[in-house]
């Protein structure tokens, strides 16, 4: 074990040439990383840049395809979180790994090695209290996890690691769930740990967090390490450019942009997420017919909620939503479907499509209410089949037959099925959330072409995407979403990566 009193400079972790691929994605591509004691390192990057993958490898959850990990100078094989814990490495995941029905003390010792059969919880509680005091992490060891707020639960996760004498802490998007005050407190905890010679790695996409928390920052993009800077030697502007990458932005040829009347108008819309936290925070938006409005932003800044509020799936707690001048705030999903709003949802396998039903049934799920698919209350199976065959041909859905269950289709074909149905049902507005996420090049191309075709047919398209290249190619106008608010709106051709990156990380209001 290293001497806890050692000052900065002792090399704690070294990762060399780490590679890891998932089907279709190179999540880590020859990444090297080092961490010294008494240091706080920030990993910065967009969604899918490979930050979490890299840290999951260090924490023993994933096994690298290639590469070497050295801990305190010695080659380490980390094949489980337990191995990682034995080396003093611990990770606080974005989704906490706590047992709701157990107390804080029980959670802290849960799964610990070398515990007696009946643990002495009094000793554990005393230990927790001591740690709580030392790091100013206020948690009652007797409380049950379900009683705790999200911020308190995070403290339990950190205590859990400290109790196990972790010296290398990995925090995955730690402030995403915290209030500003709690973030400041977390910063204090990390500083205290640093002063004791421990080290921390932050996964983040927020510029502000990088600047205040870290000593050094590594920028990842598409699985590759693109830059490394001392935090003191860089600024948000440079980091934003590095994070987004300059080469991805360009405009492509499509029919000239000639918007028509206003189709969708949002005014000061507010909504809450599942945990009751504000997800949309007074959002304003305008979308005209024949326009593709791209919503840029890091995932989790209100994109899903925005789409759901517009389509009637989530109540707006304040504000107004107007569709072609008509107030549709908190209209039912059915009433919005009837006003011609199509929706390609974020969750395509469990919301957008029903895996256990056939392709034909899935294609009929919006049209079944009216002729020719049904007459009065009675369905006409031959017409359902006819409709399915037509859409399968028109959208090039690769399926053995219209009767094949959707769960056996590839992701791209599921998406084409949803798109075919939604476009058929859409007469005024199409809301598409991450429509090309996880699709191969061909399917992505098909989806984008279809969106542009809808725009050219005079419909309004709201395209939520995390892919700036996609936005630049497809959208006419780009609005940047950050923490439930629009940070800025500009024509797609004028968007430059630096401004986008800054707006996306909340570092700057629109000039």
């Amino acid at each position: 074990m290293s001497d806890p009193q050692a000052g900065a400079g002792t090399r704690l972790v070294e990762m060399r040439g780490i590679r890891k691929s998932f089907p279709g994605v190179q999540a880590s591509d020859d990444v090297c990383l080092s961490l010294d004691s008494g240091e706080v390192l920030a990993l910065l990057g967009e969604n899918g840049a490979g930050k979490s993958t890299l840290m999951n490898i260090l924490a023993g959850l994933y096994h690298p395809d290639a590469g070497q990990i050295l801990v305190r100078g010695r080659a380490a094989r980390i094949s489980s979180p337990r191995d990682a814990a034995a080396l003093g490495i611990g990770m606080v995941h974005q989704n906490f790994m706590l047992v709701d029905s157990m107390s804080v003390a029980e959670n802290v010792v849960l799964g610990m090695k070398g515990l007696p059969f009946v643990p002495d919880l009094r000793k554990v509680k005393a230990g927790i209290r001591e740690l709580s005091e030392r790091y100013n992490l206020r948690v009652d060891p007797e409380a049950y996890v379900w009683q705790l707020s999200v911020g308190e639960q995070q403290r339990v996760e950190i205590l859990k690691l400290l109790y196990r004498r972790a010296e290398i802490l990995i925090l995955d998007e730690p402030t995403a769930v915290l209030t500003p005050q709690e973030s400041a407190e977390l910063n204090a905890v990390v500083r205290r740990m640093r002063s004791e010679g421990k080290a921390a790695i932050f996964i983040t996409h927020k510029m502000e967090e990088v600047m205040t928390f870290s000593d050094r920052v590594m920028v990842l993009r598409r699985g590759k390490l693109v830059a490394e800077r001392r935090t003191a030697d860089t600024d948000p502007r440079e980091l934003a450019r590095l994070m987004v990458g300059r080469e991805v932005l360009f405009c492509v040829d499509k029919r000239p942009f000639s918007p028509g009347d206003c189709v969708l108008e949002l005014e000061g819309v507010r909504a809450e997420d599942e945990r009751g936290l504000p997800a949309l925070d007074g959002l304003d938006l305008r979308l005209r017919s024949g326009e593709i409005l791209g919503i840029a932003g890091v995932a989790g800044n209100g994109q899903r909620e925005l789409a759901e509020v517009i389509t009637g799936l989530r109540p707006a707690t304040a504000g107004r939503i107007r569709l072609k001048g008509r107030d549709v705030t908190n209209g039912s999903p059915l009433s919005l479907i009837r006003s011609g709003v199509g929706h390609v949802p974020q969750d395509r396998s469990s919301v957008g499509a029903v895996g256990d039903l056939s392709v034909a049934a899935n294609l009929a799920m919006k049209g079944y209410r009216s002729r020719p698919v049904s007459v009065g209350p009675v369905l006409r199976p031959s017409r359902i089949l006819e409709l399915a065959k037509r859409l399968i041909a028109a959208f090039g859905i690769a399926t053995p037959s219209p009767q094949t269950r959707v769960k056996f289709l590839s992701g791209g074909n599921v998406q084409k099925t949803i798109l075919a149905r939604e476009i058929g049902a859409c007469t005024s507005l199409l809301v598409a959330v991450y429509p090309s996420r996880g699709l191969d090049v061909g399917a992505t191309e098909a989806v984008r072409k279809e969106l542009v075709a809808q725009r050219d047919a005079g419909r309004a398209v709201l395209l939520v995407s995390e892919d700036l290249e996609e936005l630049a190619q497809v959208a006419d106008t780009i609005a940047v979403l950050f923490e439930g608010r629009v940070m800025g709106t500009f024509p797609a051709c004028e968007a430059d990566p630096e401004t986008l990156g800054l707006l996306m990380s909340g570092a700057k209001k629109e000039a």
Partner: protein
Amino acid sequence: MALHFEKRKSASTAALFIVPLASFLASLALTSLLLLAFEVNPAATFAAMFKGAFGSWRAFTETLVKAIPLMLTSLGVALAFKLRFWNIGAEGQLVMAGVAASWVALFWSGWVPGALLLPLAILVGCAAGALWASVPALLKTSLAVDETLVTLMLNYVAILFADSLYYGPWRDPKGYGFPGTAPFPKEAWLPRISGRAHVGLYFALALALVLWFLLNRTRWGFELKIIGSSPRAARYEGIAVERNVVLAVLLSGALCGLAGACEVTAISHRLQQGLAIGYGFTAIIVAWMSQLNPLAIAPVSILMAAILVGGDQVQMKMGLPSAMGQVMQGMILFPMLAGSLFTEFRIRRSAPRAGGPAPGREGAA
């Protein structure tokens, strides 16, 4: 050579028929082992059971008598199960309907025209079944209370409530202490076809067709299918999930209620002990064996009824416990559950390694 399970791309039609049959044969084999342990001849026992259930016209009508309530409750259960609403309260819904129908038959005859007494008894019975099912349905859709527990517990409430009536205020004063109400007036008797088999059979067969049509050929059935497969998707498609779940469960309760109303108006002609003899629970097995297909429920119910009736015969002829019929039912369920694996999956033998004889061949030669 290794065996692999492989998911079927679309459910095999052949498997839909072969698997229940094979499961049934497997359960016969399992029961045979048990019978051998009792030192009786399995073949003779099965022959006696078959004879007891189908050996004569009278035996067949008795089998139908048990098949009718099984069909009706199974239709109800299958409808609820389609929505993944685990209604295991068919027994209670049947009993409450029996109570309600008896109430009409016993106490309304004074002020209702005689010709209306029977239809009213049956309708009020169905309504009572639906009402009893509405409790778990509303609790689930409004407060997310688990329906399995509520439907199960309400069975006992219903059974004890019926008990309290025919042991207490409704007991026939001329009944020599027998636990039951006075007999219904003749106008409230459901006509019989032959033996004790009654027109409830026509209701059941007609409703099986209606339910099949409803589920497979109507917009409502399509909505129920989507809700059953994915409530989140249903909501996104603009379907009122809660309202439709409640409606379907009400219908499920009404179907189970019809079974109870028929039992009291056609068989016992009074409310008495022996109304709750487990049809509502056997219906769960029937519904699964029929793979929730209304059209399969009629033959499967007759098969199950035959096992019940035949089981009684075995008790008398072979000196076996009458519980053997129920044991066989249980023995059927296990192979059925295992068998459902084969409608979803198929077994594939992995091909021997290319470019050489299968490993192990040489050693064997």
